[in-house]
């Protein structure tokens, strides 16, 4: 029975892919109920994967987040316009996903604390993080949380987080291929894809990733010390 349901769902998903996102948007704009089914088949599993496996949210949070994202898609579908091709819709949904995720991260920063949230759920059991890396990450996250709290108290949208701007500055001071590697791997983009952007082989990138991370940690620490010294 379970297999039959899975097969049926896979068939529906293929159906959505074949018909394309143009038709999905048409259905949603026309207020057709099947549009909701097609939207869920096309995006729920995909976004759940990203929320849980890339952004490391707990299952319940991921489920609620994806539900909110798709709800907003249905409510705002009349504001959506294709500009180039049918991929526009995917990018639009991803922009909503990113914004909702950002709100969730800010909320966790204000309430539970990000390190507590992510550490407890994902990292403490199996991962061995070097002390220096842990220290630097903790310092950045703490500074980020403080800036969120300050902005929340002031009642305006935060746009300038000194810690994140420093992260961006340190990345800029690295080799282009190094920062592409770090940025892309953080979002689980496969080495194969990154190889295309950096003109380095997949094998080289796998070897260099840990070294480049250490280099970033060292540069960031130096950057902080230099700032404290001046």
């Amino acid at each position, binding site marked *: 029975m379970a297999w039959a349901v899975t097969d049926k769902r896979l068939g529906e998903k293929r159906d959505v892919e074949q*018909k394309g996102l143009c038709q999905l948007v*048409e259905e949603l704009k026309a*207020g057709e109920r099947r549009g909701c089914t097609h939207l*869920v088949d096309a995006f729920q599993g*995909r976004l759940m994967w990203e929320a849980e496996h890339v952004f490391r949210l707990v299952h319940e949070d991921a489920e609620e987040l994806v539900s909110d994202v798709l709800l907003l898609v249905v409510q705002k579908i009349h504001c959506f316009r294709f500009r180039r091709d049918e991929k526009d819709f995917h990018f639009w949904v991803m922009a909503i996903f990113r914004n909702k995720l950002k709100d969730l991260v800010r909320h966790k920063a204000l309430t539970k604390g990000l390190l507590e949230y992510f550490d407890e759920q994902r990292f403490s059991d199996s991962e061995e993080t070097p002390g220096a*890396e842990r220290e630097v990450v903790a310092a950045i996250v703490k500074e980020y949380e403080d800036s969120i709290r300050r902005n929340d108290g002031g009642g305006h949208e935060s746009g300038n987080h000194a810690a994140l701007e420093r*992260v961006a500055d340190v990345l800029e001071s690295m080799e282009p291929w190094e920062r592409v590697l770090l940025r892309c791997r953080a979002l689980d*983009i*496969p080495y194969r894809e990154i190889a295309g952007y950096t003109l380095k082989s997949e094998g080289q990138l796998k070897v260099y990733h840990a070294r480049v991370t250490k280099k970033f940690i060292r540069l960031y620490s130096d950057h902080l010390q230099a700032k404290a010294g001046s």
Partner: protein
Amino acid sequence: MSGEFFDLVLRIAYLEGAVDIHGAYEREVQTRVAVEPVPEASRALLIRRLENAQSLAAPVRDLPLTLGAFLRRASRTLPRGGADLARRIGVSRNLFRLLEHDRISPLKIPVESWLRFLSFFRLPAAELEVMLRRTHRLVVLQPSYRSTLARYSAGPRGRRKNQILDRAAGELYARAELSVPPDEQARLDALLTSIRRQSGCDPGKNA
């Protein structure tokens, strides 16, 4: 594994817009094979929630009713109006005027011009298709209501009445779900299939 913990910082930086990867992540998500299996109950619950939201949201369509209405609106926003638009689409000024007033069937315009139209207005083929179907139906059915209108008086008072009726009938035919003769329908379907295939928005292409 070292690096996992550090990635948290870069993810936050990405979400806050402090680092940019120029759409590489969004492109990757579209092609990713890994998808979280969703329990049937959770899926059904979400669909129900979305359907409720959909029924509450008022449908607002601002897509013009016919191609003529679309072109008239677009002409107003361009500095040289219709002349510029006609040149960009690749049709003569006379043909463009007929299109503007829904006096010519879209079948008379070559596929290449429709492709230029799509690319110029960055419209999805599906939206053009809706407008072309309505316009074609309007053009095909116009003679039948014109003969009805001809029975009205052509005097000064009648002319105004005719204008109102003309507009009303045009809108009625564009909105109504009326079937056109099968041969006309077949020709229109062939044109739309060519546009879809050549614009790269053919649902059968990804199969």
